[in-house]
């Protein structure tokens, strides 16, 4: 792998950019790997990367049905924050946020991490109490957040309307080092670094079966033939249930569609991320100038990557009240992703009933922000059999009643 640097740009400029090489190889699968990861999204690639970097396990394949980063990694609204109420959540999301801080340097790939700050608006009395509680919890967890009043919100977001008739802005939970990153670049950066370590990223290769012997995984069947492995990681978001079925166990998940949309590009007008959970809407401005808007989920199971239009209507209607200046913006694109929701709205990172098989799923509506922390913890779990980051997120927590209940803590959007 050639190192990216200012010098490299200058060198290539002098020779008509003929010296750039492909960022990652596209090999045919080998017969056997130490570890196979199913799913080349952010979480799967990050898991492979930290397996190699932290544990020296480099005989790894990442198998992807579609194309690299083409699932929810390329469909989210790129928000990064760690202001969660429950301790296990704060730990893994803050680990991820911390890793995002110097991920560009670590991967030698510009993921455009922009710690511009995230405000979660309080628009009801209930939310004021909830966010003040979260701010206190975050102080104990070592996550830097603060409760701010409406005047400070207005200072940070001049385009906001504080005294909307339905949804007044009463304050907010402010995380100064939250922000955004370029979602595709996170997947591409991890993929390039994995490929440089000799790992194989095999795209356009669908897993059709999981092979096991004496209660242990021994390989997978794919559209490119059978591949053997010692350990298997299933990291596929929306289709986790289908993969688990192949591996002979079930998951407490339901798949629903979550939608987002972007406007036409406009001049810079908002340099923080604003989330409004009461109205199921959040908004930030991309570097291209588009207003990136995330909405709510449908209430029913759906695998189509298309959501119901009325959710977009509701989100935009509420956001127009809070941000009157967006009322005449044209919306350019709208899309949906299939998110896998658990009963307590927290993810599952766990061993499974099948020996040597691990699962990372259930990130629901908020997986992007967790990618580095999730990969870090998952790699530790797969390499050593135990990780303090993932311990609380085990599959058996539902049976044991150890919920990590972020649905009551955060309302809706994660």
């Amino acid at each position, binding site marked *: 792998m050639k190192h990216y640097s200012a010098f490299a740009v200058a060198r290539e400029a002098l020779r008509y950019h003929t010296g750039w090489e492909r960022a990652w190889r596209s090999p045919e699968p080998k017969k056997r790997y130490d570890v196979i990861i199913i799913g080349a999204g952010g979480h799967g690639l990050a898991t492979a990367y930290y397996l190699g970097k932290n544990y020296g396990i480099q005989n790894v394949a990442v198998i992807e049905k579609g194309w690299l980063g083409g699932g929810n990694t390329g469909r989210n609204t790129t928000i990064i924050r760690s202001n969660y109420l429950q301790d296990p959540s704060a730990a893994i999301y803050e680990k991820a946020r911390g890793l995002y801080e110097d991920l560009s340097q670590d991967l030698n790939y510009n993921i455009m991490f922009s710690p511009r700050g995230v405000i979660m608006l309080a628009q009801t009395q209930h939310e004021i109490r909830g966010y003040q509680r979260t701010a206190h919890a975050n102080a104990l967890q070592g996550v830097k957040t603060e409760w701010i009043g409406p005047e400070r919100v207005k200072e940070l977001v001049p385009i906001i309307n504080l005294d909307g008739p339905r949804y007044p802005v009463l304050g907010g939970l402010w995380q100064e080092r939250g922000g955004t990153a370029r979602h595709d670049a996170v997947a591409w950066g991890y993929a390039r670094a994995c490929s440089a370590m000799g790992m194989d990223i095999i795209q356009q290769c669908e897993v059709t079966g999981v092979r096991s012997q004496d209660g242990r995984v021994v390989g997978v069947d794919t559209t490119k033939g059978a591949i053997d492995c010692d350990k298997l990681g299933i990291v596929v978001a929306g289709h986790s*249930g289908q993969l688990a079925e192949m591996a002979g166990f079930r998951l407490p*998940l*339901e*798949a629903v569609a979550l939608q987002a949309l972007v406007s036409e590009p406009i001049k810079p007008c908002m340099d923080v991320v604003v989330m409004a959970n009461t109205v199921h809407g959040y908004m930030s401005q991309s570097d291209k100038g588009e207003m990136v808007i995330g909405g709510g989920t449908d*209430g*029913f*199971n759906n695998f189509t990557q298309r959501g*119901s239009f009325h959710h977009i209507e509701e989100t935009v209607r509420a956001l127009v009240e809070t941000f009157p200046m967006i009322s005449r913006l044209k919306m350019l694109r709208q899309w949906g992703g299939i998110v896998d929701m658990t009963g307590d709205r927290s993810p599952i990172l766990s061993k499974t009933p099948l020996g040597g098989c691990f699962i990372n799923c259930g990130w629901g509506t908020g997986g992007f922000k967790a990618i580095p922390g999730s990969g870090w913890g998952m790699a530790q779990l797969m390499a050593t059999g135990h990780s303090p980051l993932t311990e609380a997120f085990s599959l058996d927590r539902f049976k044991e009643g150890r919920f990590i209940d972020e649905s009551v803590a955060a309302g809706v959007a994660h």
Partner: protein
Amino acid sequence: MLILNCPYCGVDAEETELAAGGEAHLKRFGPGSSDDEFHDYLFMRENPKGVHFERWRHANGCGKWFHAARCTNTLEVFGTYTAQTSEPPQDIKDAIAAKRPGWTWREFS
């Protein structure tokens, strides 16, 4: 937009008129049941990519609960039927079989 026919009032109701009620035909487990049974009842949903049975409520209409048979992969609706039953009626099963030969869902097929 999803449109379901309410089997009680006969109206073709759009999604905004309806409230989704989750998976249908759950067998309830309570005190005296095993941990596994209670866990499965509370958390283990079928979540199929394909034929699915759900509860819906005609919330902004007649207010009645009813059942719907739907495909989660295509959003196709196979039919709706009364809530006063613990399994899908034969005509709904036949309607599904006509479109999805060999379908199964839990113990039904």
